[in-house]
């Protein structure tokens, strides 16, 4: 399972992506977030307030209760500011 980070989440975490083995106990995105926050202070900081974070799974926006599958690409990033 590939995890990607953008903008200030990438900076806090110090990496633009990481690969995790899928854990079948993770049902939703929220479970994955709880797991990721234990990885480092940077992870904890980046994911501390999920109201500031958008989540995409396989390029589609999803909510925290979205069900994960093995092989998903999950991305965490701030609200977008292009255009």
């Amino acid at each position: 399972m590939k995890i990607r980070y953008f903008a200030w989440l990438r900076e806090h975490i110090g990496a633009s992506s990481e690969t995790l083995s899928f854990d079948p106990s993770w049902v939703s995105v929220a479970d994955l977030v709880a797991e990721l926050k234990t990885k480092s202070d940077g992870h904890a900081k980046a994911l501390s307030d999920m109201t500031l974070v958008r989540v995409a799974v396989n390029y589609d926006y999803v909510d925290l209760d979205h069900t994960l599958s093995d092989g998903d690409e999950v991305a965490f990033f701030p609200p977008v500011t292009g255009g």
Partner: protein
Amino acid sequence: MTVIVTEDDFDLAEIYAKLRTPKSPPSPGAVTVFVGLVREMNNNRPITSMTLEHYPGMTETRLEAIRDQAMQRWPLTGATIVHRVGKLGPNDQIVAVGAASAHRQASFDAANFMMDFLKTEAPFWKSEDTGDGAEWVSARDSDDTAKRRW
């Protein structure tokens, strides 16, 4: 040319020419083109550069979806979105959207719609440098409000 994400500058005349004279008929009676440019000041401090980060793969997917929605919602003869990424300077071109139709209001509305959706759905992030280090630009509530009009 329908959706392009690129580090290179774009030529508005070229985007317009393709909307004005499509490869296959019908030709439009109305073309609206919008260009977003790097602003020169942030809180009264001159911006020396801007960097645009994006999510390769998702960006193109979202932009195609926005363009498809516009094509379905209005009777368009063509629609284009071009967005730059990487490092830009003041007054540089960031984004162009264009919409062509037999009807002027359809071309205006489709271009406006694509910009409103791009602003809230396309995974780009701006950081502005005023010489004291770069700062991530904050998303604006007004952009969400603009999107909900449609």
